C-alpha cells in the first residue's frame, strides 16, 4: 500500500514537472514561431481576428524585403562588421584573459572587474561623443565606425568569458610543456589554446550575435551606406503605416542565423558567462 502511494506521487510529480517544462519551452518559442508564420502571410491576413492559422503561404513579403531595400548589401554590412569586430575582440580578449587566468598579481580582481566598465557604459552615454569623434574623422556612415564602437562591449565580453575557459585548462599541462623546453608563449599556443578552442568558439559566437543585434550605434552612426540589418527592419515603420508583413519577413531573416549559432554554442555559452566570475 505504502509503495503504491509512493509510486503515484512520483508519477504525478513527474507529470507536473514535464508539463511545466513544456509550458516554458512553448512560451519561449511561440512568439518567434508566430513571427515566422506572419512573414509568410498575405498582408491582409496579418490582422485577421480570429487569427488565421491555415492559409496558403506566400513569399510576397520576402520578395518585397529583398527587392525594395538592397537587403544583400546591408546583410553584407552586418556580416562584415560583426566578423571584423569579433576577430579583434577575440584576439585581444583572449590574450588578456590568459594573463588574468595564469598570473597572480596585486589588484587582479579589481583590474578584471574594471575591464567590465566599458561594457557597463550605457551606449546612450557614448553615442553622442562618438558621433562627434567620427564626424571629425570623416567616418560617419562607414563600417569602421561601427567596428570601433562595437569593440567597447565585445572586448570586455571576451575577456570575461575567456578567463573562465582558460581557468578550465589545468595549469599543470602548461608547466609540463615549459619543463620540456617550451616558452610560455609556446605553451600558450601549443597547449592551452587548442584546449580552449571550444570556449573561444562560443565566445566568438556570442560576440558576433551582440554585434549582429546592436541597434542604437547603428541607427545613429550610419546613413545609407553602412546600415546594418536591425536598422533596416525599423525602416518598415513609416509615418503612415507599419508594414508588419515585411517586418516579420526581415525579422525572421535576421533571427535565423542567431538561432542557428545559439543552438550550436548553447552548452558553452552559459558556462562561459557564469565561470568568468565564480572562479577567481
Amino acid at each position, binding site marked *: 500500500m505504502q509503495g503504491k502511494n509512493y509510486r503515484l506521487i512520483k508519477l504525478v510529480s513527474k507529470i507536473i*514537472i514535464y508539463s511545466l*517544462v513544456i509550458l*516554458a*519551452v512553448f*512560451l*519561449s*518559442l511561440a*512568439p*518567434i514561431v*508566430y*513571427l515566422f508564420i506572419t512573414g509568410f502571410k498575405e498582408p491582409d491576413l496579418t*490582422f485577421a481576428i*480570429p*487569427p488565421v492559422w491555415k492559409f496558403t503561404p506566400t513569399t510576397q513579403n520576402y520578395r518585397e524585403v529583398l527587392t525594395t531595400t538592397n537587403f544583400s548589401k546591408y546583410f553584407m554590412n552586418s556580416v562584415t562588421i560583426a566578423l571584423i569586430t569579433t576577430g579583434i575582440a577575440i584576439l*585581444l*580578449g583572449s*590574450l*588578456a584573459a590568459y*594573463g588574468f587566468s*595564469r*598570473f597572480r*598579481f596585486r589588484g587582479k580582481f579589481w583590474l578584471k*572587474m574594471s575591464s567590465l566598465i*566599458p*561594457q*557597463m557604459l*550605457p*551606449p*546612450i*552615454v*557614448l553615442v*553622442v*561623443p*562618438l558621433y562627434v*569623434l567620427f564626424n571629425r574623422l570623416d567616418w560617419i556612415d562607414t563600417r569602421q565606425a561601427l567596428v*570601433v564602437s562595437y569593440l*567597447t562591449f565585445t*572586448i570586455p565580453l571576451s575577456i570575461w568569458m575567456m578567463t573562465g575557459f582558460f581557468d578550465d585548462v589545468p595549469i599543470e599541462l602548461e608547466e609540463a610543456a615549459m619543463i620540456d623546453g617550451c616558452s*610560455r608563449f609556446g605553451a600558450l599556443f601549443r597547449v592551452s589554446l587548442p584546449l580552449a578552442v571550444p570556449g573561444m568558439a562560443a565566445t566568438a559566437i556570442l560576440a558576433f550575435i551582440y554585434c549582429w*543585434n546592436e*541597434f*542604437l550605434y547603428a541607427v545613429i552612426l550610419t546613413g545609407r551606406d553602412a546600415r546594418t540589418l*536591425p536598422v533596416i*527592419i*525599423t525602416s518598415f515603420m513609416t509615418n503612415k503605416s507599419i508594414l508588419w508583413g515585411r517586418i516579420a519577413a526581415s*525579422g525572421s531573416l*535576421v*533571427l535565423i542565423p*542567431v*538561432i542557428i549559432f*545559439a*543552438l550550436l554554442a*548553447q*552548452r558553452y555559452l*552559459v558556462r562561459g*558567462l*557564469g565561470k568568468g*566570475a*565564480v572562479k*577567481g
Partner: protein
Amino acid sequence: MALTQSRIHWTFRRLLRKFEPAFYISPAFIVLIVILLYPLGYALWLSFHTWTLRTFKQGIPFSDIQNYTQLFSNPDFLNSLRITLTFVILAISIELVLGMGLALLLNQDIKARGLMRALILIPMMCTNVVIGLMWRLLLNYQYGLVNYYLGQLGILPVEWLSSPQVAMWSVILVDVWNTTSFVALMLLAGLQSMPDEPFEAAKIDGASAFQTFTYLTLPFLKPIILVVLLWRFIDTFRIFDVIYLLTAGGPARVTETISIYVYRYGFQSFNLGVAAAASFIMMIIMLIFALLISRAIGKEE
C-alpha cells in the same frame, strides 16, 4: 665581471617576469582606453556647456554645473530615474524567482534536458529590435494574439501598451520573456556543479525540501546569483532598444527610462549639454551599484 653580468641578467629576468602579465593584459586595455578616452572626455566637457541648435553655431558657452542643477529640478528627469529603478527592481526580482523555479525544474531527472535547455535559450539571443516589434504586434489592443486568446478564456481585452497603468508591466513582461532563460540557465549550471554529499547528509538528517533549499542550495548558489545580478543589472539599467520599439517611453512617460530620456533630449530636442549631464548621472549611479555587487562577488572568492 661574470658575476655582475649574471646579476644584471637576473635582475632583467626578474623585471621581465614581473611585467609579464602586463604583456598579455595591456593590449586589450590600451585599445579600450584609446577608444573611450575621447568620447568620455568630450561627454564630460559637453555636460558643462550649453549645446543647443541655437548656440552651437556661435561658439558653445560654458555653463558651469547648470545642466546638472537643472536636471535635479526637472520633473521629467526625476521621473525617468524613478521609472528606471522601478523597472530594474521589478524585472530582476521576477526574473530571479521564475529563473530559479525553471532551473530547479530543469535540474530534475528529465529526458531530453539538453534539447529543452537549448530551446529555452533562444529568446535571450534574439535581436532586441525584433523582440520589441514582435511583442508590439502580439500585445496590440485590437489585433494582438494575446488579447484574442485571453478573450477566449473570458478575460476582457487589456490595453497593454496604451494604458499608463499597464504599460510598465508590459515592458517588464517582455523583458522577463527575453531574459528569464538566461537567469535559469546560469542557475542551472550552478545547481549542476554542486557537490552531492551535503545533500545526502541533509536527507539522512531528515531535512525538508524547503530546509535543504534555504540552508544548502541558496548559499551554494550565492556566488552565481551575484553574477547573474550584475549582468542583469547592467542590462536592465540601460535598457533602450526594446522599450524604444515597444512604447517609445509612452504612454505619458510611464515607460521613459533614463536611456529613452537622454535619447529624447539628445536627438529630438538636440540639447546635447543636458543629455550629456543626464547620461553622466546615469553612469555614476550605475557604476556605484555595479561596484557594490562586484564587492560582494569579490568577498565570495
